[in-house]
């Protein structure tokens, strides 16, 4: 029952975070919401007994891709600031 409740809460939060990521105005906030989305997806993968996918998602989804997005946004902002 408790396990089931956790699954339901996580799936609702996943949808909510995805909607927030698509609808927020600031790009940086979108990146942060996507990072939180992948972090919750890791928990969902562990519950669904797919630890291999969970490890990959934790490293790539919430670590590497987020920081690359942040750096790209920072450098794009720098170029915009110069003009």
């Amino acid at each position: 029952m408790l396990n089931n409740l956790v699954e339901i809460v996580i799936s609702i939060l996943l949808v909510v975070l995805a909607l927030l990521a698509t609808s927020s105005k600031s790009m940086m906030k979108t990146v942060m919401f996507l990072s939180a989305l992948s972090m919750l997806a890791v928990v969902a993968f562990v519950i669904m007994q797919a630890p291999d996918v969970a490890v990959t998602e934790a490293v790539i989804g919430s670590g590497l891709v987020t920081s690359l997005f942040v750096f790209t946004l920072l450098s794009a902002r720098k170029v915009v600031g110069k003009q």
Partner: protein
Amino acid sequence: MKQILSLMLVTVLGLLIIVSLDGNPLYVDYGDAQAANRISTRFIRRDVNGGNQAVWFGVSEDLESGPANIVTAIVADYRSFDTLGEVTVLFVSSLGVALLLGTLTTKRMELEFHPNFMLRVGSRALFGIILMTGVYIILHGHLTPGGGFPGGTMIASSILLLYLSDDQFRTKVKSFKVLESIAGSLYVVLGLVGLFAFDYFLVNFLDNGVLGELFSAGIIPIVYVLIGLKVGSEISGIIDHFLTEEGA
């Protein structure tokens, strides 16, 4: 208007998925699945002598698929050629990044963000821990979840941490490129050894050993170490391209 339309489209698609899965004989109800009849169980239990007994961790010998992690058995043994294709996809993507962002003379990109002393020293301490976790995940890819791809990405993340915390830091990109090409070529050479000396391409020609030991599962740990080195150096190169710009 557009939002209502997209909501309706998503609802229709979701209903379509639910209707097609409901009552489908391939997807039995929760709790009714017969795990003993699945074809995967027969593959897990099969050994090289044609037997089909229960598998015990640390006891079973001469299994057809050596690794304790069955995902690894599929990724690096049964479908190793597919993994070679994945590595090639990653290589092509890093080549694309190099073509788009690479310049002759490079320097670190100057951002409006300068890390202080504490961040620099703290990240140096964290760097070792993340690097060792990545190496652990690569080396134990045939025993625990993980393997070459996540482990290599973790190594690249530790390099990224150094880039984050020090605005003068550069890795030795040239040696990373050499390492990447050597690891990728050795993977193909390993497959060719299987093709010419044994039966077919990328065959697991070493002894499988006892299930669950570090030195077991034949060539799978070697393949995973090569993949980990290749992925780690490749993504480190991509990160370096992202964080540098033209200039002396």
